């Protein structure tokens, strides 16, 4: 505000204000310095004077203190009345007790300290305080306290300040008058110059000049102004000619611009053409993209149907890309998958991570297909078995760039495989147990049969001896009893023999070779005819194919089957026994057919059991081991045996063997 009004003031007034300000500052500064000096020097004198007074009074008061005369001490202190600035004085004893005091009456408010303060002088509360020791004979006997006010000092300073203000006012007045006079000298030429410049700017007459006013800065300013006027005159002329030149050049430039505009138009047209082409291209590309998208959808769909995901490992960037199906298989949200190889490995079961990593690296290194099974742990904690299969894609130089692979959830298959495996294993162990049990049983029956024979022989032997010794006497009942005993002993012997051979059959190993079935049957028939000379037997034998097997065992089979037929056709005149065979697709079937008593089919399942008989020994003798033995032998050769019959119309016994030596030895293994 003040600054702006000063800036707009006339030079004359500025000059006056500046001179006045400088003068007042100078006078005020010297006054200030003088007053400050006066203050400090007077104060220092006051301090010194007080100390002097204190020293004198302290010395004067020694006797009063030493002889304990407070009134005298007070009288001595009262002499300080002459010193106007001393307001309080007091004497304290050696022990610090107040002994005597003096207080100037105009200042009753001053307070006497109850005890002496620290020794020395200091300013406090605008007063100068002094605590001075009182000494006598080199011994301190008390303390003198003096307090001076600074009123005298202040009064003197006020007088000086008042004088300084008067001097300042007078000096200011004189300076103002003198500067008014002097200002004209400096500002006169400036004012004239400013009037002239105003006139020129109004009249535009640059031919006017100002008369020079001397060699000082003002004179040089006027010279410079005149020089400037001449230059402006000259430049005015040049400006007019330049304007004409400019107009000409503008016209030229306009023509050039017109040509340029035409060229630009042409260029724009070609750009338009190009953009039309681009549009077409873009449309084509869009269509291609749509087709691609369609294919992508199909692929996703196909993967979903097949539950087969696909993924890819970019070898150089180490990034993993998954198809939608992989996300579904792994149960991971696409936003949760980071896409690095370690993100992939992290979802794997910890035990399988190294396996997959190694398989991938190996596939890339050896350029061979990837095929690996591993487990993953889905976010819900469930473990899934996955199968990955892939191939390595190489670049032009044969370096692997990526691994493209499929991923399939094989958990269910894996689990069913496992179940089958478990079942098989169980079955195997059951079979082993069974075989062991069978072996044990056979061993047992063999031992039993063997051991039973000895007592039997004793029974038979002693019965016979009885009969020889008492032959003539043993008549009637006795003779019959002995016969029964001996007959039963024989029967039992027979039973044991059969049992033994049955048990042996289970233990004996097969000694296979080619068997001539025709020859075996002929031998057997000849033997049977010899044993039953009184029977009328009609054997009808067809050609029998030979086969692979244990000849001794099959000899037994034929003997048992044919002797059975002979036995059960007892009473038929003649007994007709047919023996034959037929070749079927996988096996050879042999049969023995008779026209004997036959049996009820509902008991057919009992025929081949050990000691199982359908007839009593009285009707047909036998131990019930024969057919069991047959079944055993046939079964050991991998075959089967069965029988058909009608009561009274005979029976047919058949056994089938696998063709082409697929024999029991294979089965037994």
């Amino acid at each position, binding site marked *: 505000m003040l600054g702006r009004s000063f800036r707009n003031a006339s030079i004359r007034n500025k000059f006056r204000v500046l001179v006045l300000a400088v003068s007042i500052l100078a006078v005020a500064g010297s006054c200030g310095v003088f007053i400050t000096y006066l203050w400090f020097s007077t104060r220092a004198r006051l301090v010194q004077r007080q100390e002097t007074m204190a020293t004198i009074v302290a010395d*004067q008061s*020694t*006797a*009063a203190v*030493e*002889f*304990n*005369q*407070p*009134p*005298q001490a*007070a*009288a*001595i202190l*009262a002499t300080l*009345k002459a010193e106007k600035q001393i307001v309080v004085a007091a004497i304290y004893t050696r022990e610090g*007790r*107040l*002994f*005597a*005091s*003096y*207080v*100037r*009456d105009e200042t009753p408010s001053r307070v006497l300290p109850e005890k002496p303060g620290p020794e020395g002088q200091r300013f406090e509360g605008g007063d100068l305080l002094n605590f001075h020791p009182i000494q*006598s*004979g080199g011994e301190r006997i008390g303390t003198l306290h003096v307090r001076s006010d600074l009123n005298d000092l202040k009064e003197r300073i006020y007088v000086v300040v008042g004088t300084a203000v008067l001097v300042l006012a007078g000096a200011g007045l004189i300076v103002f008058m003198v500067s008014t006079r002097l200002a004209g000298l400096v500002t006169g030429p400036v004012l004239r110059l400013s009037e002239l410049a105003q006139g020129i700017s109004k009249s535009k007459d640059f031919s006017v000049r100002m008369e020079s006013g001397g060699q000082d800065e003002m004179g040089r300013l006027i010279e410079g102004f005149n020089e400037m006027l001449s230059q402006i005159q000259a430049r005015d002329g040049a400006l007019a000619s330049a304007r004409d030149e400019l107009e000409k050049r503008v016209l030229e430039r306009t023509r050039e611009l017109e040509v340029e505009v035409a060229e630009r138009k042409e260029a724009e047209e070609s750009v338009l053409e190009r953009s039309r082409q681009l549009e077409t291209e873009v449309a084509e590309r869009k269509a291609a993209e749509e087709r691609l998208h369609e294919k992508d959808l199909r692929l996703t769909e196909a993967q979903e149907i097949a539950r087969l995901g696909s993924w890819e490992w970019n070898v150089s960037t180490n990034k993993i890309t998954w198809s939608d199906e992989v996300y579904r298989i792994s149960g991971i949200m696409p936003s949760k998958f980071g896409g690095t190889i370690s993100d992939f490995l992290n979802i794997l079961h910890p035990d399988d991570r190294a396996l997959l990593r190694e398989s991938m690296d190996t596939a890339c290194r050896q350029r061979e297909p990837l095929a690996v099974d591993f487990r993953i742990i889905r976010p819900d904690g469930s473990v899934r078995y996955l199968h990955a299969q892939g191939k390595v894609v190489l670049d032009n130089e044969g370096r692997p760039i990526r691994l493209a692979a499929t991923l399939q959830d094989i958990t269910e298959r894996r689990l069913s495989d496992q179940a089958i495996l478990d079942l098989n294993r169980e079955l195997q162990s059951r079979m082993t147990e069974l075989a062991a049990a069978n072996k044990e049983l056979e061993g047992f029956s063999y031992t039993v049969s063997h051991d039973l024979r000895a007592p039997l022989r004793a029974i038979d032997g002693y019965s016979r001896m009885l009969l020889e010794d008492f032959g003539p006497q043993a008549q009637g009942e006795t003779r019959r009893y002995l016969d029964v005993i001996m007959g039963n002993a024989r029967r039992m012997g027979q039973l044991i023999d059969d049992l033994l051979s049955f048990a042996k059959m289970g233990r004996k190993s097969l000694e296979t070779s080619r068997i001539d079935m025709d020859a075996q049957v002929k031998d057997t028939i000849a033997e049977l005819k010899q044993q039953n000379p009184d029977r009328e037997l009609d054997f009808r034998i067809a050609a029998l194919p030979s086969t692979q097997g244990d000849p001794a065992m099959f000899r037994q089979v034929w003997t048992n089957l044919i002797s059975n037929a002979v036995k059960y056709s007892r009473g038929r005149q003649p007994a007709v026994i047919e023996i034959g065979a037929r070749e079927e697709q996988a096996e050879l079937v042999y049969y023995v057919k008779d026209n004997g008593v036959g049996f009820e089919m509902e008991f057919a399942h009992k025929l081949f059991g050990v000691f199982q008989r359908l007839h009593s020994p009285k009707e047909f003798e036998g131990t019930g081991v024969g057919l069991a033995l047959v079944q055993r032998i046939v079964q050991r050769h991998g075959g089967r045996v069965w029988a058909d019959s009608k009561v009274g119309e005979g029976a047919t016994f058949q056994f089938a063997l696998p063709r082409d030596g697929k024999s029991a030895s294979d089965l037994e293994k």
Partner: protein
Amino acid sequence: MKKACVLGLVMLGVFQLGAASTSGLELHQDAGTLPEYVVKAGFLFNFAKYVDWPAESFEKTDSPISIGIVGADPFGEDLDKTLRNKTVKERGFTIRRYPESGDIKPCHILFIPRTENGRLPEIFKKLDSWAVLTVGEDEGFIKSGGIVNILIEKEKPRLEVNPEAAEKARLTINSKFLKVATIVRASK
């Protein structure tokens, strides 16, 4: 003249009047709880500071100041305790006890207890012209020819001094001492 007036007022013990006066004087009473002879022993020591003896009364510059007591000693141990290890202007102190006036030898300060009142004339006669500061403690001591008298009034000590007697004994008494004591002249 004014001073004398003030002192007079004090002597009357009307110090409170002084405090109330326009002079601004204020007096402070000594607690004065010390036993009488402890105070007096201290005074004897202090006298040595304010009194100058003629040079010939000392054998050497550091000869001790001897303090004598006539008759029965009222101080007991107090004087010995007060002066022990004390010096004034490099002089120590010795204490002499003179049971009879006839035993008195030249000394610097002689304390005459009030029990000796009856024998004062013969004591002063014995002292003759020796430079001895005689110190008494009863009314009329100065009048009898003593130099300094210590009186206790209303439990406060008061001093009397006879400068002329001091001058006669060739003793110089410091003016500061004279200021705190009452000047009394011997009656002729």
